[in-house]
């Protein structure tokens, strides 16, 4: 099999050489550990002290819901399909039902962030996903559900505008018709 290129350590050294190298290397090692015994510990006491996460940290997502247009781009980009969203459209306004991100599956790859046309989904800095029930890991990223008061107002305004427009249109059509009638007459 092998051709030994050099003698093994034990064979090469003499009896007393072995004794000496054992004592020496043990002493060197114990010197290092003894120095560390009195040095400042490197660890932090986790729940009391927390290390700061960095600017680019990829933690639990957050959604700027008022920007989101429910285009499903992030859900399509996700390699494991862990995003599900649902909203009803009222003209320009969205009535949100759900925006679920399943952290049982999510692998924090940030691929959902890039395709977003409105730049509204971000990786946050929260990281503790400790829970006693796995079901709770299927999180809803929505800050509110359904319609907000402002949205309702805006929808009402839009509807009123629409109605006014419609009325104006109808009125115009009526006028036109009347005019035509008159012309015909």
């Amino acid at each position, binding site marked *: 099999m092998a051709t030994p290129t050099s003698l093994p350590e034990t064979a090469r050294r003499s009896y007393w050489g*072995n004794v000496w190298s054992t004592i020496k290397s*043990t002493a060197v*090692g*114990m010197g*290092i*550990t003894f120095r560390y*015994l009195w*040095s400042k*510990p*490197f660890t932090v006491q986790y729940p009391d002290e927390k290390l700061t996460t960095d600017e680019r940290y990829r933690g639990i997502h957050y959604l700027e819901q008022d920007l989101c247009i429910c285009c499903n781009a992030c859900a399509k980009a996700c390699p494991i399909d862990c995003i599900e969203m649902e909203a009803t459209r009222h003209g320009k306004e969205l009535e949100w039902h759900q925006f679920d991100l399943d952290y049982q599956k999510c692998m924090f790859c940030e691929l959902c962030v890039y395709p977003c046309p409105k730049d509204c989904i971000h990786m946050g800095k929260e990281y503790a996903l400790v829970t006693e029930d796995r079901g709770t890991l299927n999180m809803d990223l929505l800050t509110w559900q359904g319609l907000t008061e402002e949205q309702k107002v805006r929808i009402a305004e839009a509807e009123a505008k629409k109605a006014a427009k419609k009325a104006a249109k109808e009125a115009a059509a009526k006028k036109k018709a009347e005019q035509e009638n008159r012309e015909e007459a």
Partner: protein
Amino acid sequence: MKPLTIIASALPEAPVSEAAAPQGNGLTEMLAGWLPESVPFWGLTLMASGLAFGVIMAFVSVVAMFSTWLERKVAGHIQIRLGPMRVGGWHGWAQAIADGVKLLIKEDIILASADRPLFKLAPALVLGTAISTFVVLPFAPGVMIADVHLGIFFVIAISSVTTIGVIMAGWGSNNKWSVYGAMREAAQVASYEIPLGLSLMPPVIYYGSFSLLEATQAQSGWFGMHWYILDPSVMLVSVPSFVLFFVATLAETKRAPFDLPESESELVAGFHTEYSGIRFSFFFMEEYAAMFVMSAIATVLWFGGWNFLGLAALEGIPVLYTTACMLVFIVKSMLLVFVMMWVRWTLPRLRIDQVMILGYKYLTPLCLIVVFAASLLEYLRFVLSN
């Protein structure tokens, strides 16, 4: 001064030092004073034994608890961690108590396929032997359960009974890893008995006695600093013999780098893989008790026992003197225990054949050389002094 020997009569076979064991003295006499005269002598002896056992057991528990805590703190700080910090507030001082309570209330699992009598008996045997070695330790003047004349011999003999307990545990567990651990323990302890016994010979030759009490008393000179290891006339022998004893001790107490019976990265946990709850804690306590006993023997034989610089000045105040002596003794022993821990967290583990090589090829011949040198030195001293 005469030591207060408590249950010398409980060990009828053991040769009792004449100077130090007046019959019916100590605890038996104390009990006789309290109890009605109708209580027979054997009853008193039994009660005294029970009391002594209680005291030792309590002491062992406290030592084991403190040692586990210390071990974790030492390991932590060597590894730039903190170790336990939560339970009890200051540096997790109550961690060991919490662990003890946890182990007590944990389910005691006995495998269906285990050999039940062996499995159950093993932890008791292991802890029992560890405790009985405490009998001969001279903690302070007068605080010693029995001054066995062959005290050193007694400790070596009793402490190797642990091996039988470990083999029982390994075999009874019906687990191949456990059997491996047990067999390693058997091979290792049997081999290291020789260097252990031989390395104890230089101090024995020096003191001319096997008695631990006499060894301590012999070192009381020089204002309490006439320790064997500090005596310049024998330093050439005392230092090497201590190093050899220490290495053999590590192997005897299954401490790293000789922790093969329970090497966690090869044998999972070796012979106590299948133990849980209180039975596991027995093995745990045994390890620390054995460490303490071995360190205490080293303290007595090399580091002057309870003697310390200027301690004799307190002799006038008995209670203070005894307490101080005890404190000195325990602190010295714990320092050696600390060194054992320090070694453990520094060195890798040996392989079983290397353990054997170290024992037979290195330690035994070196011990023989040291014993020979010690004898020669003693003869020279004898010739010179006459």
